[in-house]
């Protein structure tokens, strides 16, 4: 026998579910632009017929579901896409960081719109030529000297600029590292909250969203992988090392190690294997020794590579001209890009430059100037790896940086396309669609109306039974 008020319970559950549905729809709509939010859906199930609560068997006709209940409110999210997004994000930020630093280096060397080392070198060459037909004239030897001074000053300046970029980027790197530690701390706190609420049986959707957002941000700094634990917490690894080990409740602090071998990212338990993220971009450009790298060293063409290249240039240039001018009369002092200057004697006297090696020198002899002109244009072992003229060496440096920037630009473009495609895929799963939510809005509204109508119908039925039944012939 069916209970008289059974239908009311069913209608009530319908009304409640529709209401919750409307609430969740409203929540989705209101948060559609909130960063990191993943849409939620109401998971409904029928309240099934339960025979244990009845003493006697019911008629078959009464054996139907007993309305609807809300199992839980789920967030729609694909963990696999999260992992892919983070990998793509790491790669993208690594490349865009390299690109931005390389672009800064390029500005030092680029001579497309400005005159730089190669133009000044050419000017020096031309002035030596002019001196060769006007030896002994103080103004022409003065011009050669001022060009030479421009070369030393340009080398000093290039080195200074690279040094400035180095300092700036090192500072930015330390900011990134601080950010990593802050994010780890936040993730740990989210872990605790999730664990607590899970124990209480409360929903954790919003907490998970926030934690995922922190993980996304962390992935822009460094390559991370995550492991989920049964208690709802998450462990974060970089390579084989744990950054957050939730099982053992331990958190690593990331810091920067700066020693003679260059920069390294370390934690209490050793060096981190940085393979992507903006940290990778910083490390490559700040540690990259290029052709100067030892066996296992970083062979990216970074700031150290260009500084060492300029040092070799300065050293070789000074050596060559000092030798040509005669060993007792050096034209240049210093043996690196930062220290090279004109010798004091040359600064005092522009005719200090040796025009002839003749035993009976006279004004007009220019054999040594010609020797300098030829030497400047002839191949020379400027560095261990390079044999060529000085202007070719400068061109080589420009080629290196141009090709690296060009390559980084293309790679970065690709990486950002990949990232935006993964992001779109992820957004397609977790994002809020206004159309969909509007449909839901109408759906739940109609469902609410329908349940209310059921309620009215039942009410009228009871009215019929109670007030009108058995009144025949009264």
């Amino acid at each position, binding site marked *: 026998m069916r209970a008289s008020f059974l239908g009311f319970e069913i209608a009530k559950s319908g009304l409640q579910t529709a209401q919750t549905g409307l609430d969740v729809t409203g929540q989705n709509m209101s948060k*559609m632009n909130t960063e990191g939010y993943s849409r939620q859906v109401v998971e409904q199930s029928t309240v099934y017929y339960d025979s244990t609560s009845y003493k006697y068997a019911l008629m078959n006709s009464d054996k139907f579901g007993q309305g609807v209940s809300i199992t839980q409110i789920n967030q729609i999210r694909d963990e696999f896409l999260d992992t892919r997004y983070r990998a793509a994000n790491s790669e993208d930020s690594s490349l865009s960081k390299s690109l931005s630093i390389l672009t800064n280096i390029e500005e030092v060397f680029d001579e497309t719109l400005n005159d730089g080392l*190669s133009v000044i070198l050419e000017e020096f060459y031309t002035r030596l030529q002019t001196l060769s*037909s006007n030896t002994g004239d103080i103004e022409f030897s003065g011009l050669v000297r001022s060009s030479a001074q421009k070369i030393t000053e340009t080398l000093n300046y290039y080195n200074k600029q690279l040094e400035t970029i180095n300092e700036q980027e090192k500072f930015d790197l330390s900011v990134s590292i601080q950010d990593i530690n802050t994010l780890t701390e936040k993730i740990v706190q989210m872990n605790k909250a999730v664990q607590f609420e899970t124990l209480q049986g409360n929903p954790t959707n919003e907490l998970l969203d926030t934690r995922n957002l922190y993980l996304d941000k962390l992935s822009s700094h460094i390559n991370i992988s995550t492991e989920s634990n049964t208690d709802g917490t998450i462990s974060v690894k970089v390579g084989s090392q744990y950054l957050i080990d939730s099982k053992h409740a331990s958190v690593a602090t990331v810091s920067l190690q700066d020693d003679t071998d260059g920069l390294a990212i370390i934690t209490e338990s050793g060096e981190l294997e940085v393979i992507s993220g903006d940290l990778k971009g910083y490390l490559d450009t700040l540690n990259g020794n290029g052709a100067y790298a030892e066996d296992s060293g970083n062979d990216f063409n970074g700031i150290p590579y260009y500084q060492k290249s300029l040092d070799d240039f300065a050293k070789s240039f000074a050596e060559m001209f000092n030798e040509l001018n005669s060993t007792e009369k050096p034209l240049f002092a210093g043996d690196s890009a930062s220290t090279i200057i004109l010798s004091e004697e040359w600064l005092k006297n522009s005719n200090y430059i040796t025009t002839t090696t003749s035993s009976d020198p006279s004004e*007009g002899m220019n*054999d040594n100037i*010609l020797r300098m002109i*030829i030497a400047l244009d002839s191949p020379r072992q400027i560095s261990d790896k390079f044999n060529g003229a000085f202007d070719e060496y400068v061109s080589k440096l420009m080629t290196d940086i*141009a090709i690296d920037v060009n390559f980084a630009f293309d790679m970065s473009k690709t990486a950002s396309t990949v990232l935006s495609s993964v992001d779109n895929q992820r*957004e*397609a799963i977790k994002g809020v669609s206004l159309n969909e939510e509007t449909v839901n809005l109408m759906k739940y509204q109609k469902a609410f109306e329908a349940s209310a109508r059921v309620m009215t119908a039942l009410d009228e039925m009871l009215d019929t039974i109670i007030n009108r039944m058995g009144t025949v012939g009264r």
Partner: protein
Amino acid sequence: MRLTNNIISKNYIKNLHESLTDLNASNTRVTAERRYMKISEDPATALKAMKIRKNLSRLDMYKENLSDAQGLLNQYESTISNINDIVTEALAQVSQGTTGTSDSAVRITVANTLRGYQESILAAANTRYAGDYLFGGENVGDIPFLTADNGELLYHGESMNTGSFSDEYRFIDIGIGLTLGDGGVVEPKSAMNIANTGAALLGAGVDENGITNNLYNLLGKIADKLENNDIDDIRIYSDKLNDKADDIRLQYVSIGEKTNFISYFTGRIESEKLNATEKQTELEGINIEEAIIAFNQQELAYNACLQMGTKILQPSLLDFLD
């Protein structure tokens, strides 16, 4: 794929940004009239252009060196023409002084005139160009020609009759492959010698008859003879003077050849420069019409992109519900 409003707006912003970046790039190309602004935009072209810039600077420099050499030659030419005039005059004077009819008074006058010519030749030989002694050979800083107490000409302190004079070199690079030969000395074929030596100008040493080869000394000798009325063998000396006159004219002609050589070379450099400049424009420059058309197309695309924005970002089902 499920499409959400956020995907649309994100993609739209990305595309709009790209479109604006392209618009900016094509705008810069038009206003700067350059194909690229940074070497990384087009490394291969930029490096080629860099080589051409160097090439152009070298060509300018060779041109400068050639024009220096030409300046020296011009001065040489006017000096030699001056000396040529003097020698022609001297020849006339000598033949006047050595005819049988002339008496000793005439001869002394002629002798004095010849000594005057000597002075003129000395002054001409010591001529300076841009502060340098033109005929100083390798030493252009010190006055090259002086006279000794016995009246003989000295070149850098050495008698031009008895001294030995080797070839002198002051090379300049004119772009024919300047190289060093043995012993760190410039290979003469690889450069142009701009040293003008006194020995070559006026002659040095003595011939098989013991007569000086030097123009100045020869005039002095003839003057001595005329003064002393010692004209029996004057014929040999006047013949010698004739030879010297021929020599001077020969030098005059050879200057013309050198000038031809220089102008030929300068012309070649000019045409190389023209080629290099053309190549440079081709590499670095843009075709302005094409660039403007490209810009207009880009602008159109950007405007279309903006217009689309108002169409796709706004509507959702909400816009059509009461």
